């Protein structure tokens, strides 16, 4: 009578154990699931001629879910670096070279999953070092795991400072922290027209955007501007017309938006609907992405956006990319589009690792960590240097503008500008 039942339960038990065993076993090759992407630039013979040495970088990146697009850029950046470095037979460690391997899982834009996967990367896949996911929330969750296992994590896509306020020793961020995002735009606007008086700031209610906005507010007030509007809208808002109306009634000179691509597009669309035309429209994230132009068409003209990095920046480096321009060429050749800054900063995270490994002359996790902490290097992406908390506060933010010719050009800082900052924003009713 109970045979079937017995079988069912045994199957359940065995399935659980088998899963555990299969996942935990080192002998079996890593599962070749659809979520997992292994990139190795080497072949079997090459590896066997030398003493087998490889560095495995692991990351959980959003390939599906709400950050799927950004996650794709991150993955591209990681992969481009790995391809290039393996062309040079890998990273020099002491007197030998180690081929680089990448292990990426899809975290579905979900912090729980992200943490779970990083724990898998550490305890099951035994990766050498960790790379960051996309977004502050997921980064927050994964840095804690890295800290628990004392595995360094250099991340490139979590800008919120609260990630780094917890005294972590193993987490580093190559990107400029959130409060710095909008400084460049404010500087540029005042440089163009010192008579600007008022700023309105709209904020997506999220950890990153709130820090961006607070940083911008402090900086604007420091520069003598009056912040006439400062309010947040719900994350994933589908309608911000109330805020636009409220801003419009204040008639600000500058409108700054702290948020992400999606809500930035929404703010622009509804500003047009409601006829909000300040002299400067600037956003933390969005205008520098090709999607922005795709979504808004001509309405994207004049809008400026902060950028961690742009292809036109004038950095020079001895890393494998050398200059932003060279990085752009390689990226374009491989992916067929201008690299968004997420890709560049992701690649920069690996550059930071490379330089730290070279300095440490070892793949030892603690030695590399110490080398990362001491790193001071000028890369194609800009300065890579971390403060005590692990944040890169030394790199300035650039500004890009959507031009009336349909292009996207760096307009700030002045020394890197390819085009003049178009000013003022042309009112909607005059277009």
């Amino acid at each position, binding site marked *: 009578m109970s045979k079937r039942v017995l079988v069912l339960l045994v199957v359940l038990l065995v399935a659980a154990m088998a899963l555990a065993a299969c996942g935990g076993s080192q002998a079996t090759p890593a599962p070749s699931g659809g979520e997992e992407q292994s990139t190795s630039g080497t072949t079997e013979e090459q590896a066997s001629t030398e003493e087998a040495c490889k560095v495995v970088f692991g990351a959980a990146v959003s390939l599906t879910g709400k950050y*799927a697009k950004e996650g794709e850029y991150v993955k591209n950046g990681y992969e481009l670096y790995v391809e290039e470095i393996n062309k040079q037979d890998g990273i020099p460690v002491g007197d030998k070279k180690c081929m680089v391997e990448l292990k990426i899982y899809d975290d579905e834009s979900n912090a729980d999953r992200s943490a779970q996967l990083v724990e898998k990367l550490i305890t099951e896949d035994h990766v050498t070092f960790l790379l960051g996911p996309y977004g502050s929330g997921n980064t927050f969750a994964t840095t804690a795991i890295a800290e628990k296992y004392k595995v360094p994590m250099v991340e490139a896509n979590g800008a919120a400072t609260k990630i780094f306020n917890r005294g972590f020793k193993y987490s580093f961020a190559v990107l400029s922290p959130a409060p710095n995002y909008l400084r460049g735009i404010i500087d540029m606007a005042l440089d163009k027209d010192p008579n600007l008086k008022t700023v309105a700031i709209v904020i997506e209610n999220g950890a990153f955007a709130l820090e961006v906005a607070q940083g911008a507010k402090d900086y604007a007030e420091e520069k003598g501007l009056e912040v006439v509007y400062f309010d947040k809208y*719900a994350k994933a808002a589908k309608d911000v017309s*109330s805020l636009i*109306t409220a801003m*419009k009634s204040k008639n600000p000179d500058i409108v700054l938006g702290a948020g992400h691509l999606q809500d930035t597009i929404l703010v622009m669309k509804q500003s047009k609907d*409601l006829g909000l035309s300040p002299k400067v429209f600037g956003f933390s994230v969005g205008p520098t992405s090709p999607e922005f132009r*795709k979504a808004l068409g001509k309405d994207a003209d004049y809008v400026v956006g902060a950028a961690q990095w742009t292809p036109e920046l004038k950095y020079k480096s001895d890393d494998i990319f050398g200059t932003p321009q060279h990085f752009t060429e390689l990226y374009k050749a491989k992916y067929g589009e201008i690299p968004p800054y997420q890709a560049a900063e992701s690649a920069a995270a690996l550059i930071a690792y490379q330089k730290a490994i070279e300095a440490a002359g070892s793949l030892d996790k603690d030695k590399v960590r110490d080398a990362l902490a001491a790193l001071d290097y000028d890369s194609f992406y800009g300065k890579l240097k971390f403060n005590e908390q692990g944040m890169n506060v030394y790199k300035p933010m650039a500004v890009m503008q959507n031009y009336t010719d349909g292009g996207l050009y760096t307009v700030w800082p002045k020394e890197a500008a390819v085009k003049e900052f178009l000013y003022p924003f042309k009112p909607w009713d005059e277009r």
Partner: protein
Amino acid sequence: MESLQFTQGIVNAILLSGTLALVAIGFSIVWGILNIINLAHGAFLMVGAYITYWLFTLYGIDPFLSLPISMAIMFVVGYLVQRYLINMVIRAPLLVTFLLTFALEIVIINLATFFWKGDLRSVTPDYAGLGFSLGNVQVPYVRLAAFFISLILTGLLHVFMTYTKTGNAIRATGMDIDAARLQGVRIPQTYALTYALGTALAAGAGTLISISFPIDPTMGGAYTLRAFVICVLGGLGSIPGVMMGSVVFAFIEVFSGIWFPSLKDAIALLVLVLVLIVRPSGIAGKAFYH
């Protein structure tokens, strides 16, 4: 509050109420007649929006012209979904239909994300964003047109429900299924037709929304919840009730959005809970689609 905010708020609320009414009516007839909460409603709306987007992007078809196309396509889809899936569990307990339609939503959204990617898209005809000013108040043409089209569609539905035999059969089925059977109404077909109508209306609303707002595969969920709130506010089963509910809801949403921008859903939802607590079966009693 400054007067611009106030007057613009009123205009926004009125414009919003039109689209919301269209969303809610489709949801409401499915709930009222089939007695299921169709959690996939928003997903159908999203598909409607994407149909418009693709027709515009690939073939340059004007979004307003794509309205009948997206409605017709989703009408057929809705009919098939009800007839061959939902009908299997139509009389099952609440939890079953709830989870079934929820799963349906998950599948549709995931497929949409898979094929169309998760990023935000916009339908941008040349006239997008154009409008006229009444004093300082802006009235975008597109939203105004969407408002009137919503009203027209709602009116057409009203006429259909009231003056055609089929419409009467649908209403009759919602009121007394056995009596409807005795008059010769074929229930399975009527149910499928009702669901198809609801789906088509959702798609129509999706089309109109896609012209004024950016779209993405997850856009629908918020509209499903709003539709529910509106049905409760306006009472289940009457088109004028849904219209009233939409207006009330639009005003709550717009003005709570002005005062507490990051709390606007919470306020609308708490209003819903309050209404339910005071009147456990919605504000208006049971009326039946006229």
